[in-house]
């Protein structure tokens, strides 16, 4: 929990329950929102907005993964497949049936949630890294099904998906899409913040820390584990729906296994088991991606191979090394460092 200076106490229950406890934090949050919704889009060009759009979608996907892995302790290395299910669901509905966005978003969430229910079923018997392997197996199976979906998913040819139309406005530019994605990402973050404080969030943490002890305390652990999978997949489905409408064209190659590994890895880099950690992870992931794109030409010169594949190889090595370094040197992630910085500001001039 948040460290506060000596002598600052909560005096009502409402204060005790509130998430934003000090006026300073309220001000910080207000500045953040102003920057996010007014300041940034006012000055950023389409390129920067594009980066932020991808970050926003990644944040939504990572929040789901964080609830599953960070809070419930179930490891998933098939998360991208869920994003794919959400993306394909909304693309199929909008492409074949002509459904509008306000209908495809909840249906993508529901379909992916049901998929999560199915993937969560093995949790009845297994735990730990066996769960990880079962999600890996589901990843291969889901991708295979999408690839062989015939006319429905258009397999290797790719499935087009219309841009979003809300209240008569077509969100076909980066700038218009930016507002939609940010609203969804912020809503998702607030929901996640609150979810982990409820009965369910506490149950997840109990199961993560020791599932046998949690069962002994009277929790129906199977129910909660499956619930964690469902929540995780709903987030992934929403992210997938946004991704489909954002990209406008879906192929299976956009959902490779390696992205699941990066999601999981950068969740650790950000700080697994905290909501801000997931947000940090998404930012670090996509910003390193941008650095590599920026450095791409130089890498192509150093390794005179086919430049495209050498950049891909370099990215893979760099990402893998970042994850390993964080695991070994700072397993609590960027978020932990950020909290140290924050609390030292708050408590200044005292050391603690």
């Amino acid at each position, binding site marked *: 929990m948040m460290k506060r200076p000596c002598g600052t106490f909560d005096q009502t229950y409402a204060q005790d329950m509130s998430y934003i406890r000090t006026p300073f934090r309220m001000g910080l949050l207000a500045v953040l929102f102003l920057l996010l919704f007014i300041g940034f889009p006012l000055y950023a060009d389409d390129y920067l907005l594009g980066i932020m759009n991808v970050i926003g979608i990644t944040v939504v996907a990572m929040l789901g993964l964080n609830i599953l*892995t960070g809070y419930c302790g179930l*490891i998933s*290395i098939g998360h991208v497949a869920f994003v794919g299910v959400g993306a394909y669901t909304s693309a199929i509905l909008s492409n074949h049936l002509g459904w509008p966005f306000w209908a495809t978003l909840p249906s993508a969430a529901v379909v992916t949630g049901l998929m999560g229910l199915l993937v969560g*079923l*093995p949790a009845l*018997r*297994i735990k*730990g*890294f*066996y769960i*990880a*392997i*079962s999600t*890996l*197996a*589901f990843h*291969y*199976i889901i991708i*295979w099904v999408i*690839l*062989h979906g015939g006319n429905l998913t258009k397999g290797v040819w790719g499935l087009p998906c219309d841009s979003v139309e809300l209240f008569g406005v077509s969100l076909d530019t980066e700038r218009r899409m930016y507002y939609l994605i940010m609203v969804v990402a912020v809503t998702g973050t607030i929901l996640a913040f609150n979810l982990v404080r409820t009965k369910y969030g506490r149950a997840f943490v109990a199961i993560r820390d*020791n599932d*046998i*002890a949690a069962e*002994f305390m009277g929790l129906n652990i199977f129910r909660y584990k499956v619930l964690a999978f469902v929540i995780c997949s709903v987030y992934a489905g929403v992210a997938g729906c946004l991704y489909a409408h954002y990209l406008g064209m879906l192929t299976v190659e956009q959902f490779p296994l*390696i992205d699941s*590994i990066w999601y*999981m*890895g950068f969740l*650790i880099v950000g700080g*697994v088991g905290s909501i801000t950690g997931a947000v940090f992870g998404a930012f670090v992931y996509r910003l390193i991606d941008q650095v590599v794109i920026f450095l791409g030409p130089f890498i192509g010169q150093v*390794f005179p*191979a*086919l430049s495209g*594949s*050498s950049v*891909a*190889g*370099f*990215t*893979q*090595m*760099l*990402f*893998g*090394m970042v*994850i*390993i370094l964080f*695991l*070994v040197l700072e*397993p609590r992630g960027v978020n932990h460092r950020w909290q140290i910085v924050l609390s030292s500001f708050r408590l200044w001039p005292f050391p603690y």
Partner: protein
Amino acid sequence: MFSQLIVSGFLTGSVYALMALGIVVIYKASSVFNFAHGSIVAFTAYLIWSFVVQLHLNPLLAGILCLLVIGIISFLVQRLILYPLTGQPVLAALMATLALGEVVSGFVTLMWPGPARTYPDFLPSGLIRLGPATITLGEIVNFVVCTLAFGAFVLFFQKSRLGLTMRGTAEDHQLARSEGVRVNRIFILAWFIAILMAGIGGFLMAFMHGVNQEPLISLGMKSLAVVILGGMESISGAVIGGLAIGVLEALGAGYLDPIFGGGVEEVFPFVILLVVLMIRPYGLFGYERIERV
């Protein structure tokens, strides 16, 4: 067709068994599940190809150089990555091996980009009739080498002092430590043996189908299914699981491909894996763990 599928599945399965053996050795010794196996298989296959075909080294010298490289890698992996993660939750070691796999496969993409490499044919391409089934000479060599490697493996663990020490360490780290065993060195040795197995398997597959990264990595991923089916701790389980997965995959591909339009062998081992996890999560020969709080 049935007997043809059985025989060819059996022969592929022997390579799966060799792959799975590598994963089992590491898991038994240090309870780390090695997700990087596929990438390491690809790396060693490319390495051997470079030494033998690109640099025209004497096979003996190439072999010694390969052993040296494998030794260095296993030392670095254990010392720099896994040793600091001792005592961390499952997620840490799991992600470390996954990230290691990506580093290795990124390295392979950087060093050996482009299309698949092939070995020059130095075996006569004869077909052998075995009852109603036909097999190539290469497949026979493949099977024989796998069997020899497996035999050497079993002999090492049954007879040699070092092998016995390794088995003892796998049983109980603390007891082994109190007997004066350097447990960390045993882990390095386990990685060495595992990468050696990966190298042999990778060489055999590369020799048959050309050196190519994607299929070799998916080979490593499929050997996950083998390990789960056979049981995480069981060496005989790895062999039986490997042969079973090979045969089942060949049968599945043979009979289901016309229905689903191809590519069944890519996904069939994972379906088996899920079924095993649902019915018998500890595998055919694994230990059923009883947990205490």
